């Protein structure tokens, strides 16, 4: 078994567009059910993290900008790590991701050890 990072991207949301706590609660169920399903197959290596909407980008000239939204339409919303035999199987697992139902996408990348 190898490990793969699943990165969730979706349309960038401004601060004003952020969902209410009740909406978040409702949005959580498909995510929890999906991750619980992966864990029940013993294929979830890490529950990863959700990312906050505000951030900074530090450029090579050390200029700090609010971001990353200015340049890109899609922002990373979160990530998890799954266990799979190969990239194809990992991509198959990604097909259940709820971000796909709200027009987002999942990037699947193999993890390479440091050694």
């Amino acid at each position, binding site marked *: 078994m190898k490990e793969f990072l699943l990165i969730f991207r979706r349309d960038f949301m401004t601060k004003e567009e952020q969902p209410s706590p009740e909406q978040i609660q409702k949005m959580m169920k498909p995510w929890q*059910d999906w991750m*619980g399903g992966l*864990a029940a*197959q*013993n294929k979830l290596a890490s529950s990863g993290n959700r990312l906050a909407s505000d951030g900074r980008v530090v450029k090579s000239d050390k200029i700090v900008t609010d971001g990353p939204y200015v340049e890109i339409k899609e922002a990373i919303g979160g990530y998890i790590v799954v266990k799979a035999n190969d990239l194809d199987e990992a991509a198959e697992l990604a097909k259940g991701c709820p971000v796909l139902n709200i027009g987002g996408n999942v990037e699947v990348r193999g993890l390479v050890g440091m050694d």
Partner: protein
Amino acid sequence: MENNELIPHLFRTEYSKMVAVLCKAFGIEHISIAEDVVSDTFLLAVEMWGQKGLPKNPVAWLYFVAKNKSRDILRRQNIFDKKVKPALPKEEVDNEELYIDLSEKNITDSQLQMMFAICHPSISAEAQIGLALNILCGFGAEEIADAFLSNKETIYKRLARAKEKLKENNVPLELPSQTEIDNRLDVVLRTMYLLFNEGYYSASQNVTLRKDLCLEAMRLTYSLIENETTNTPAVNALMSIMCFHASRFEARMDSNGEIILYEDQDAALWSEELINKGKYYLEQSSHCDKSKVSKYHIEAAIAFYHTNQADTHDKWESILQLYNRLLQIEYSPIAALNRTYALSKANGKEEAIIEAEKLGLEDNHWYHLLLANLYTGINNSKTVTHLKKALNLSKTEAEKNFIEKKLQEITLIDA
């Protein structure tokens, strides 16, 4: 209490304490001497009490005799040492008068320390359970063999090897330091949990023995709660799980030892006292910050929802979310199967079937029982296939009887 009841009772309650307190005095490397002394003491009790009647204070009598026997052994050991090791300075030998502290506090402390010694990370999980049953609960090799569906010789060898390991690794008889206690306690809790499950889900037909295993696990877990340093939220959560499960003891089997499924149980037979205790310890376990929420907390919460038999959607949705979290903390096949059952109740059978078939547990008879249940009413011929597979994989008479009954029911419906 009559003599013939009193001695087995005292054996159960005092054996492990006596071994622990003597080990504390001898050092754990001499555990077999401690066990011999305690066994001899009980043999003598059977003989003497039968002839001369009960002593005024039987427990004190046991400790007094065990203490004297230990003294004799150590004295003999000293003489031996004196002869083979003439180089030993004389005064050291003479001063070695054995001191055994029989205060209540030392007895409890020694037993707690023995728990940590047995649940040392250097001992395998399987050996830990055997040792716990043998040394902490006073079960003999035969009873352990019965519980594990193994034979006495195998268990005897396994125990001997595990004790050798205790000796080799020089496991100290002490409580770990405060900084280390959480990590070490993890292993102790896992062993107590397995001990309880061994009783609760054991394949053994011996119902009394199984109940004893559960009660022993609860007694030992309670001793962790009683001690300030080991009274952690996770220990209380584990105790809560045990109380909730044990509350259904009288309802989960019929008089022939046959399994009664949760939804078919007579809730009037559930012990309200144990349910209330479970709630109490669950409450106690909640006094911790979020980062300390353990898998025991989540399992206790699941067990709490099961104390209400009503088949509501909200209940199953809560249970499903708890299983989702539990599996993210730690995978286990049984949690995966239970989660899928909760999924069928919360999101419907169709979704649950798709998820179940991804679990990859074809060698597990519970897996086939789950699929048989999910397919009932949707595709009964699949139910029959899975029941037959489950029948082939199941190991105990009670399970086989149960599955055969299900097979008869389903073929009757189809006929």
